[in-house]
């Protein structure tokens, strides 16, 4: 699935950030599946994130890190038009998916979300059975499936949950533990076979063991899916991701805080040899 001629090559779009780092993107970087260029997101008149440009590479895990309130969730939600649901939220700049701008008039946000799914910070299974939680997406999207049972089983297996729930598919998803609920939400998301999965701090409500399971699962899933994860946990970003974007909040002349992308690069490089002083301060624990 290569993007048809994209005018914005990855090297260009990350110029503001990545290019100033010594070694430009490694040669094996393919055309990105998604690309943000000059993206600003507003809540009413407030510009929450300013001028963000970065690529999302196919079948890689891209992490977004940074202090709380710097706009990570805001940017993540702009990738599948979840911000549409917030009255007054507005996106400027361009977010492309296979070269197609997601914010042109003729784009159907429902179709966008079918291809770009999302897992949330707090597990939010529906108050329905485990089975119905997983079958929900295929049902509402009218997916043609030979056997719903098989599809549910496959999604639960892929989310590493099948063995724990195979005997109680009819019980409520709410009866599961927090970590299981989050894997159920992941199963529910992959059941509609999206291409990209967005995860907003998916482990922040979980204990370390449940977190480790989700991290393993993410690595496993990155064989088939493109993953973008927001995390406030730097170790997590370092452990699981291939690319990392570091955001921070800047205060402007009018004393307003705006989220800014400070640095985007391969994870190993960002953590061992950051190009920006602010990145270095953040990852070494020296804030501000």
């Amino acid at each position, binding site marked *: 699935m290569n993007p048809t001629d994209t005018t914005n090559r990855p090297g260009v779009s990350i110029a503001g950030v990545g290019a100033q780092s010594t070694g430009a993107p490694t040669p094996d970087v393919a055309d990105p599946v998604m690309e943000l260029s000059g993206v600003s997101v507003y809540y009413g008149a407030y510009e929450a994130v300013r001028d963000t440009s970065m690529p999302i590479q196919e079948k890689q895990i891209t992490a977004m890190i940074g202090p709380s309130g710097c706009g990570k969730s805001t940017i993540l939600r702009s990738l599948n038009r*979840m911000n549409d649901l917030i009255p007054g939220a507005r996106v400027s700049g361009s977010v492309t998916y296979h070269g197609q701008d997601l914010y042109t008039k003729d784009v159907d946000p429902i179709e966008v979300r079918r291809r770009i799914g*999302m897992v949330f910070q707090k597990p939010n299974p529906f108050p329905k059975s485990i089975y119905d939680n997983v079958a*929900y997406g295929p049902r*509402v999207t009218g997916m043609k499936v030979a056997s719903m049972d098989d599809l549910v089983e496959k999604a639960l297996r892929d989310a590493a949950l099948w063995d724990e729930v195979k005997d109680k598919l009819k019980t409520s998803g709410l009866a599961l533990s927090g970590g299981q609920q989050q894997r159920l*939400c992941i199963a529910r998301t992959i059941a509609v076979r999206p291409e990209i999965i967005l995860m907003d701090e998916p482990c922040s409500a979980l204990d370390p063991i449940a977190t480790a399971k989700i991290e393993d699962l993410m690595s496993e899933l990155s064989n088939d899916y493109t993953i973008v994860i927001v995390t406030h946990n730097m170790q997590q970003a370092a452990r699981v991701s291939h690319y990392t974007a570091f955001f921070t909040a800047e205060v402007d002349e009018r004393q307003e805080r705006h989220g800014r992308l400070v640095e985007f690069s391969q994870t190993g490089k960002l953590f061992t040899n950051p190009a920006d002083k602010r990145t270095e301060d953040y990852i070494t624990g020296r804030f501000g």
Partner: protein
Amino acid sequence: MSTSTSNAGSAAGSALRRGRRRPVDSTVKVLLVAAALVSVATTIGIVIALVQPTIGFFQQVSVVEFITGTSWTPTFAQKAYGVLPLVAATLTVTGVALTIAVPLGLGSAIYLSEYANPRTRKVLKPIIELLAGVPTVVYGFVALFALNPLLQKWWPTDNGPAFQNLLIAGIAMGIMIVPTIASISEDSMAAVPRSLREGAYALASTKMQVSTRVVVPAAMSGIVAAVVLGISRAVGETMIVTIAGGLTSDRIVLNPLEGAATMTAFIANISSGDIPVGSLDYDSVFAVGALLFLITFALNAVSIRMVRRFREVYE
């Protein structure tokens, strides 16, 4: 209060003792308990008041006759005490009312909770709730003198609705309980966490799918409670059926275009007449009243359970 003196320690210390009884708190408590007891006592009083004449009634009429008899004619020369005609009329009117009120009430609730923007909701919700305050006698005569003539005029076939009929009473009653169902359902839908809606949108749902497949099921126990409450209001409603519902009770009327007396309409009618205390007719009012009480009591109990279940869902 009395410690405003800036005296030495001993004075301040003694001020802490319970020297003077402050009557306020205990008096308030007694008054509040009394207020609560009044309603409990009233309920018990009603039961007692119902029981004695009801027992008197069943000493003369067998329970089997009461429950299975298909003619209710206490005021005729040929007396019969089968309550089924009254129950059937009540069921018919309630059925018509629900057919109107559930779709309208639920539709309004979905609109208010999921579609209306906050400003519209702020204006509309109180208006809908205001409708619940319209006196039922108004619904009754509007039904009889305004709606029913229209219904008769537009009726496609010859044998249209009678002057008084169960259909028009049911329609009026349905409109009457729309606010109840809409308001309570909207409350329970508004209580569904935003995170569930977001989860559904993230799975490529349309707004309609989010509303009908996630929000409505998640709010279901509240919605059922609203409907049960609506049913119990319909079963107990008296004015509309007395004015517009008709009086027939000597046979079971199944055609909603005809008039028939419901349990409440019978009680209202016979009570406004002149019946000797202690007579069988007098007692029959209480027997029907007791049955009505049992039914609404059971419905309210179901409704309370539902509301409780609904509260527990997201805890």
